[in-house]
């Protein structure tokens, strides 16, 4: 379900592609990502009539970096510093035991009470929706939020569950076997969203 992250082309060096070197198509550059985040920050404030009772929870990895950027923008606009948490959904995945190895575990840190709060989940790419399903299950183990909203940088379609985003940076029509790769300054050294041809064996989401 997280094949966009788990099967990044650069994580699989030396796998030869029968179609030759893939030609990545750049969907968003650094400036466009910055504008998208600014717009989403405004939309979150507009929808929730301010920052009161709103908390941000990013899904590791990269969703947490985007959540911190959103919090930064909202503080710039509204002057309110929203709490930011990070959620690792590994333990809530629906495919544990279906992969050869147990999926790698990341940090979870939700150091605030979510009871009665409006939680904005933040992720980089919305694809099958399975990650979000797992994230909602994880979140309700921390308490009973008043509402859960979803913000994503890219919605690439191909949903397998009845889930939609409240705030979207960019809708990107894709083929199901393409790879959408989000690079962020914090982890990858640059900001970019690219669509790549599948490398090697296709892995479904």
């Amino acid at each position, binding site marked *: 379900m997280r094949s966009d992250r788990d099967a990044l082309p650069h994580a699989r060096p030396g796998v030869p592609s029968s179609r030759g070197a893939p030609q990545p198509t750049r969907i968003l550059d650094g400036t466009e990502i910055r504008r998208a985040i600014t717009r989403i920050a405004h939309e979150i404030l507009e929808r929730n009539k301010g920052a009161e009772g709103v908390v941000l929870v990013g899904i590791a990895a990269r969703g947490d970096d985007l959540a911190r950027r959103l919090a930064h923008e909202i503080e710039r606009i509204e002057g309110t510093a929203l709490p930011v948490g990070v959620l690792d959904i590994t*333990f*809530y995945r629906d495919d*544990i035991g*279906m992969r*050869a190895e147990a999926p790698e*575990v990341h*940090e979870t840190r939700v150091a605030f009470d979510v009871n009665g709060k409006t939680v904005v989940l933040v992720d980089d790419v919305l694809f099958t929706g399975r990650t979000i399903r797992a994230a909602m299950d994880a979140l309700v183990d921390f308490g009973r939020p008043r509402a859960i909203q979803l913000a994503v940088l890219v919605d690439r379609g191909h949903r397998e569950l009845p889930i939609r985003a409240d705030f979207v940076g960019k809708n990107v029509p894709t083929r199901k076997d393409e790879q959408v790769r989000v690079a962020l300054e914090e982890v990858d050294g640059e900001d970019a969203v690219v669509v790549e041809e599948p490398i090697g064996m296709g892995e479904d989401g």
Partner: protein
Amino acid sequence: MNQHLLSIHDLSAEDVVRILDTAESFREVGTRVIKKVPALRGRTVVNLFYENSTRTRISFELAAKRLSADVINFSTSGSSVAKGESLKDTALTLQAMGADAIVIRHSSSGAPLTLTRWVRGSVLNAGDGTHEHPTQALLDLYTIRERLGRLEGLRAAIVGDVLHSRVARSLSFALVKMGAGVTLVGPPTLIPPDAPAWGVDVSYDIGAVLPKLDVCYMLRVQRERQRQQYFPSVREYARLFGLTRERVGMLPEGALIMHPGPMNRGVEIDSDVADLPQAVIEEQVTNGIAIRMALLYLLLGGAGAEAGEAA
């Protein structure tokens, strides 16, 4: 990682780091109001304990339950084992019932290895005879790394009844694997003759070792395993090798005092020493749950076993 965890020798240094890092995430789960995640829903873990153990069994039970696995506790008293069932028949029965993992403690060294011949699931060694107790060593490494920030280059002493201690063996192998220096300390009768082959030093003088330590690990005097007189009296043992208040003063500042439990207060460790802030004995217990969750998750969270069998 292998399908089973029988010995520290089954693990590479890389595996150890992966286990400790995974345990870090599971410790966060232990701080939540709802201390449970659905990761191993539908999996069955059997605790098969041929030796009495409260803390290790409870720790494994809690670990499995916090992962949402189903847990069966099979203790030998009052069971088919008391009626004379062999280890093999017990294993085949558990196999037929679909156990995904068997956590075994046995008084015979090598019993867990033997068990792997009869079952398809993962076998976790929770202590076998005087051989190994790998999960204890891993939780000790976790505790040390968390407190001191690293393992490489640290100097540790393991003091006491090394001869009968599976904890001492597993911990020595693990510390040496991670690049720490280990000195075994105790009366010559309780230091195994093959100890130098483990890559450790040996000393019979605790006073000479203490001032150079980062970790002082005290072992329980296992009188139930001692089949002969290894030292003249408990009082003399306590005087020569016990960790007294006075000896704690010889440790460098920041050095940790550890003990696998259960303690004999007043024998290997003075009662008030066990309660000092640098004694991390309760942290070891808490971290034990996280380590065992990490191991169950890593061993059962993939399809590795079945995939390997199919290949």
